[in-house]
């Protein structure tokens, strides 16, 4: 076998091996999307009922709760950024990080200090490399987050919101995550969780906006109910964001791996064309050598006669 041909064969083998890996990753991601989507769907009843209840208390009573009223001079805001633990998911993490950067810029432009909280190893390493301050970070569960993970993330955030601004508390709570729109589209979004903006929620859910809320009887009292409700509300919103991000991550990884597989296929095709050409050239050369040798022999014997 000619040297040229051997080089092509070796490259084809190595690309085929890579293709097998990317194909496997694509299939794994595809199967996990469905599971993640199911989890999102399973958590929806709790989240929507909770949102309804919070809306009911916030609109149905005249309670002034620190978590629902806007500070007159908001001085500090917390931003929770949700990224992935692992790479090979296309632009998934960098898109979320970019969205967080934009939000941070905007908040700083409004004259607020920004405290950053991060979920996911990718975001942590991005901030660590640039030596930016991160208040707290969590890693290791972005693939399949549980409610306990959401609680762990929410706890310091709620604590920060409840603290006075002067003592290091925050006035606003924003969350940046990747919304799962469809298998093909995932968009990074930033939401303000606290203080509650009821208009934004109505925009989310048209039917809820048109619904007239009844006058509720609160047990034991509106303040106490709100006190208990809001942390749960934040937890469930964070849980929902984590689940959607997980689904988005798997979808992004599936897409990235699919295009990697396609590219590998393309590469194998063009490489085997080149290999065929090299083989053909080799054969042609051998034939012309044989023919040339034979005719030289024939000429020699004819001359000696």
């Amino acid at each position: 076998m000619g040297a040229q041909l051997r080089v092509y064969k070796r490259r084809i083998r190595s690309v085929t091996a890579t293709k097998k890996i990317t194909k496997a990753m694509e299939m794994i991601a595809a199967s996990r999307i469905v599971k993640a989507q199911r989890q999102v769907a399973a958590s929806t009843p709790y989240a929507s009922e909770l949102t309804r209840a919070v809306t009911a208390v916030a609109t149905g009573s005249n309670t002034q709760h620190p978590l629902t009223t806007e500070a007159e001079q908001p001085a500090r805001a917390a931003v929770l950024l949700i990224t992935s633990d692992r790479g090979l998911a296309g632009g998934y993490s960098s898109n979320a990080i970019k969205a967080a950067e934009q939000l941070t810029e905007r908040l700083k432009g409004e004259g607020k200090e920004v405290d950053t909280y991060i979920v996911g190893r990718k975001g942590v390493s991005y901030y660590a490399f640039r030596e930016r301050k991160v208040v707290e970070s969590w890693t290791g569960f972005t693939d399949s987050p549980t409610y306990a993970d959401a609680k762990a993330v929410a706890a310091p955030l709620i604590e920060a919101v409840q603290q006075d601004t002067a003592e290091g508390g925050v006035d606003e709570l924003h969350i940046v995550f990747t919304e799962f729109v469809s298998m093909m589209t995932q968009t990074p979004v930033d939401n303000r969780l606290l203080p509650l903006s009821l208009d934004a929620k109505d925009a989310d859910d048209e039917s809820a906006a048109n619904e007239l809320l009844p006058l509720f009887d609160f047990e034991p009292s509106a303040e106490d109910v709100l006190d208990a409700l809001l942390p749960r509300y934040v937890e469930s919103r964070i849980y929902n964001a984590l689940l959607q991000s997980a689904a988005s991550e798997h979808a992004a990884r599936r897409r990235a791996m699919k295009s990697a597989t396609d590219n590998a296929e393309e590469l194998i095709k063009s490489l085997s064309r080149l290999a065929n050409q090299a083989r053909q050239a080799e054969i042609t050369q051998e034939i012309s050598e044989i023919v040339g040798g034979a005719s030289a022999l024939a000429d020699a014997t004819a001359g000696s006669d």
Partner: protein
Amino acid sequence: MAELHVELVAADRQVWSGEASLVVARTSSGDIGVMPGHQPLLGVLESGPVTIRTTGESGDGTVVAAVHGGFISFADNKLSLLAEIAELSDEIDVQRAERALERAKSEADAAAERRADVRLRAVTGVH
């Protein structure tokens, strides 16, 4: 007979949904029974068993669930029980709950003891 629609949801799943004629739950100021046509209500639940007396499609019977914290909200003849953790009595593993109770008692873990106790009470129906 009048009936109300009940949704019992935990943070990560829907535990039970159906029609009922009476729901008894424990709020922070005491047990509360909700029947069809109750005044709109929003309350904070304590850890404890929730009893749902079912009617209609789900058949006449009683469903008991162990609920660990959460909320009860009733409006428009729809009752929602929201809990971080909720288990139906027939899902609860009695032996496991008993073991958990023993362990919690020996370790003097009040929260765990309470959780296990609520589970056991939901199974045995002793309120």
